[in-house]
């Protein structure tokens, strides 16, 4: 029996929603009167779905969406909206809400929306469970030197790590930061051979050189090679560009943050801060990033 938490500051609306949900289908319905009470409650008794009023005096629906998205076991949230709050509802969807139902259409739309969301969530939860049973994963990607591919690639790699339960939500962002910096390095400094130090001395020259080399097949036809290995103990990302490499002793000597006024050097600092091991090959055109699995989460992402 799915467990649904109804969050609304109005006792009348809580009662109405509870009645609508449990009318025709078996459903265990719990109640909370604001976002904070809901957060406390789901920490003690996990639920499968939350139906929440968007507009509440203390910790409203948006706050609840944010809090649940940050938690270790995100739960889908369906928001109930009053007339005129469509813009807020869109913001809530962008921040991770699963859907919304106008309060004036609750009788007609609430139950089908909740059932559809529960079905989707269960399907995703089963996929997530399956992924946690994957012991090894090896993938290789050869991507064009195209900056538009970096963001989707980072998101894909983050998702792989996340599904294998190697990190929590914060760890996922940290891994994304390190990967983004390493891929940007491979693209601009590796394949295009534009030295980041030039940014400090002449920004215009830096920009012009990037632009020039993005048009020059000698540089722009190079690729970035990414290898992902996930084992129960760790995740290994190997990122190689096709440039000539660089003198890696330059970075080994400066593990500290660069001067406040320096225009470069921060990317490498972030990579080192967010990965457990960072190793360059002898040429300097391949970096191996290792992230050891964090304490394995007790729950499958999205399963509770």
């Amino acid at each position, binding site marked *: 029996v799915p467990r649904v938490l109804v969050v609304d500051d109005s006792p009348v609306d809580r009662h109405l929603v509870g009645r609508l949900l449990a009318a025709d289908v078996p459903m265990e319905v719990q109640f909370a009167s604001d976002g904070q009470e809901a957060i406390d409650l789901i920490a003690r008794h996990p639920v499968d779905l939350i139906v929440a009023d968007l507009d509440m005096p203390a910790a409203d629906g948006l706050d609840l969406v944010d809090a649940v998205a940050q938690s270790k076991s995100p739960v889908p949230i369906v928001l109930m909206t009053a007339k005129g709050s469509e813009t807020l509802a869109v913001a809530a969807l962008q921040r991770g809400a699963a859907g919304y139902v106008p309060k004036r259409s609750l009788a007609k739309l609430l139950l089908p929306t909740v059932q559809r969301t529960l079905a989707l969530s269960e399907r995703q939860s089963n996929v997530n469970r399956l992924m946690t049973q994957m012991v090894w994963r090896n993938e290789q990607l050869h991507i064009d030197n195209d*900056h*538009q591919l*970096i*963001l989707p690639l*980072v998101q894909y790699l983050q998702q792989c790590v996340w599904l294998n339960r190697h990190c929590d939500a*914060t760890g996922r*962002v*940290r891994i*994304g*930061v390190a990967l*983004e*910096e390493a891929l*940007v390095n491979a693209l*601009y400094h590796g394949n295009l051979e534009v030295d980041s130090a030039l*940014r400090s001395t002449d*920004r215009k020259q*830096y*920009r012009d050189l*990037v*632009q020039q080399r*993005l048009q020059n097949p000698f540089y722009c036809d190079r690729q970035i090679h990414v290898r992902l290995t996930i084992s129960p103990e760790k995740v290994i990302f190997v990122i190689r560009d096709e440039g000539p490499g660089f003198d890696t002793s330059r970075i080994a000597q400066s593990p500290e*943050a*660069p001067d*406040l*006024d320096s*225009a*470069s050097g*921060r*990317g490498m*600092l*972030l990579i080192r*801060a967010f990965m457990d091991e960072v190793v360059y090959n002898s040429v300097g055109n391949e970096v191996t990033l290792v992230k050891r699995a964090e304490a394995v989460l007790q729950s499958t992402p999205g399963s509770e």
Partner: protein
Amino acid sequence: MNGPRAFLVQRDSDDALIIIPQRSITSLAEDEAFTEMEDLLLQVEKDGIKIVIVDFKQSSYVASTMLEALRAVSKKVLSLNGGMALCNVSDVAREILRLVKFETRWPIHSTREKALKAMRE
């Protein structure tokens, strides 16, 4: 420029500019991001901007390209006797600012309204 942008820019008043870094900055070529930054620097100078608030409500983190852009904007507004503050900074973004030693460089406030109020005091 069409397509993704590194920042959304809003005016709060004659002398205050709100910069909202966008998640899509990585999908921009670095040179495009820096061109946007140069435009921003020109606007700060031309309009005599005294207050810049960087609102991180759209980004869960801040990468080095963005850090460099913010450093340049801050430098410009300081040269005009103004100041810059940040708001809606996530835990990871705050951790990044601490790592690169920028945490104390700019005041950090929980909301845009608090940041504007503090900068006007």
